């Protein structure tokens, strides 16, 4: 596979609950801004997606926003996609402002670099709602609120789970996401930090699989060859985990048994793999922001106070609950 530079980043993986009430857990202060006099049905809402829909998470996220907009009969949904380019996301948002949208839902690409867009929206008096990734700036001032998962915490959870499965003694291979993506950074840092709690667990290799199944497979093939003693794999998304499983089987290992596998997202195929015993656990990241986002916009338009941060409660799938929760996956 090519040694090329790329960023087809995956977003966070996603957990699978459907109802927004379940996922929302407001934290921090509330925000109260004076809204314009407008009904949601008459609003033109912009949605700035950060990356192409190349993985289940992004697909489910965009789909959720689109179908919810349709369901609620809103006037128009203006959809743009930044194709992983921060500069494009800014001009996308500015294009929406030029079109006089009434509210903008942004799935930010980067933590940094959104200032010019947020400023421009502010100047035009258009409220911005962030989903799935946070970005630098103050809630209530630069944007209304953030809704999403805590990737850092996901990394920590993964470390704890792996420790649990391996009796706190393992040679761990890490399959990282796209280099430079904030999801990758947080999930790696959370994992590494938490692993320090377990002195007998050692990371023997940490390589990027670029959130891709193919890449996850080839990288795992290489790693298992040069490090035959690997007995735990942390994959920062489900796709890479599925690729790694294939590679482990090819190398004569039994994933789930000889080699414990933990990954993040909660896609249907991954949870299915828990049932068949190839993956030990999956940490959920919920991509279905549609209902939550539009509820929040509705609250905002109604002049209700909005929490400054709405952190999604992510589930954990294991052998115990995989079967029953399978239809919550995406």
């Amino acid at each position: 596979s090519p040694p090329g530079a790329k960023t087809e980043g995956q977003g966070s993986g996603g957990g699978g609950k459907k109802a927004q009430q379940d996922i929302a857990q407001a934290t921090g202060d509330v925000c109260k801004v004076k809204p314009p006099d407008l009904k949601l049905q008459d609003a033109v809402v912009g949605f700035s997606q950060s990356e192409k829909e190349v993985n289940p998470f992004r697909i489910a996220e965009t789909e959720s926003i689109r179908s919810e907009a349709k369901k609620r009969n809103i006037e128009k949904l203006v959809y743009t996609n930044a194709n992983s380019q921060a500069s494009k996301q800014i001009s996308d948002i500015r294009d929406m402002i030029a079109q006089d949208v009434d509210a903008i839902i942004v799935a930010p690409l980067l933590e940094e670099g959104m200032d010019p867009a947020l400023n421009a929206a502010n100047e035009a008096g258009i409220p911005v709602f962030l989903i799935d990734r946070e970005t630098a700036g103050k809630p209530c001032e630069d944007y209304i609120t953030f809704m999403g998962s805590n990737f850092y915490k996901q990394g920590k959870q993964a470390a704890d789970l792996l420790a649990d499965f391996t009796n706190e003694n393992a040679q761990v291979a890490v399959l990282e996401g796209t280099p430079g993506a904030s999801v990758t950074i947080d999930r790696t840092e959370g994992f590494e930090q938490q692993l320090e709690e377990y002195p007998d667990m050692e990371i023997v290799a940490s390589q990027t699989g670029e959130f891709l199944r193919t890449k996850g497979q080839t990288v795992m093939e290489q790693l298992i060859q040069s490090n035959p003693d690997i007995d735990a794999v942390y994959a920062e998304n489900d796709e890479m985990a599925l690729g790694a499983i294939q590679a482990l089987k090819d190398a004569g290992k039994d994933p789930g048994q000889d080699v414990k596998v933990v990954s993040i997202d909660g896609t249907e195929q991954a949870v299915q793999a828990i049932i068949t015993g190839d993956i030990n656990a999956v940490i959920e990241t919920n991509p279905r922001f549609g209902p939550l986002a539009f509820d929040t916009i509705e609250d905002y338009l109604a002049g209700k106070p909005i929490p400054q941060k709405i952190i999604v409660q992510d589930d954990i799938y294991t052998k115990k609950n995989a079967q029953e929760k399978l239809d919550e996956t995406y």
Partner: protein
Amino acid sequence: MDSGARPNKSLDASTVTSWVRGRGVYVAFVVLVIFNLIVTPNFASVVTLSTLLITVSPIVLVSLGVALTIGTEGIDLSVGSVMALASAFLPLYLGYGWPVGLSVALLVGVLAGLVNGSLVAFVGVQPIIATLAMLVGGRGLAQIFAGGQSLPVTDPVILWLGQGRLFGLPAPVIVAAVAVLVVGFLVRRTTFGRYVVAIGGNRSASYLSGHPVRRTLLAVYVISGLLAALAGVVATARLGASDPSNIGLLIELSAITAVVVGGTPLSGGRVKVVGTVMGALLIQLISNTFIANDLPFTWAQVLTAAIILVAVYLQKGRGVV
């Protein structure tokens, strides 16, 4: 299997150096193998070799097609997207049996090649632009047809193409080897091969010698599309699922690198089949080396660039003027 000049029989010093220079890729490959033997744990094993060969197979398949297009002084940037197209279509028709699914997938590649080839040969669009458009649009189409989803492939015959073995040889390697032989034969033995290098060497002269310039160009892009589709099928089979968003992503860069590092000049007029295979092996081995030794991805990329430059530098020498 080059169709260009073979070294002189009279072996003086300059001939020897120029022989070595023409084969920078072999030198680089051998050096890298030795390096790995010393440094990489468990490198000298059958498994390592077979993994290397399996992973390199799709690259070899697309590189062969790209080599042909480059031979005509063209290029095919669309191979990765054509792989994605084939991957998207494969599961859609597998319900009618594997022959149908496979044929449809390969046909899609042929079609993409026909579009590229027609634009190049009949409309006169520059190859890099024609295939760039296909690179951009083709993957979009693949995603639309597959609904952006990755669909599982369970047909045993198709899966065999990616995961099976014959006489202990991995199936993807067999597929790639057959393609190498066929293309090598085309280039060396057939009038078609001669037309390819003649067109690349001097299109007007080739035309005035009565060569079917347009037909040959069309055929070259169709072959490239077909090989890319085949690579897409193999990659899909290996994955056990279609993945139109990611299969073949950026493979055009690897392929072009393999072709050029293998001694086929971008200015056309020469096609080196064995060199191309070596080039593909070299760049795959580079990437394997970095992963197996857990070197950081970023520096791996920097070093890859350096190695490519050295390998190509070693074989320049056949200067102009």
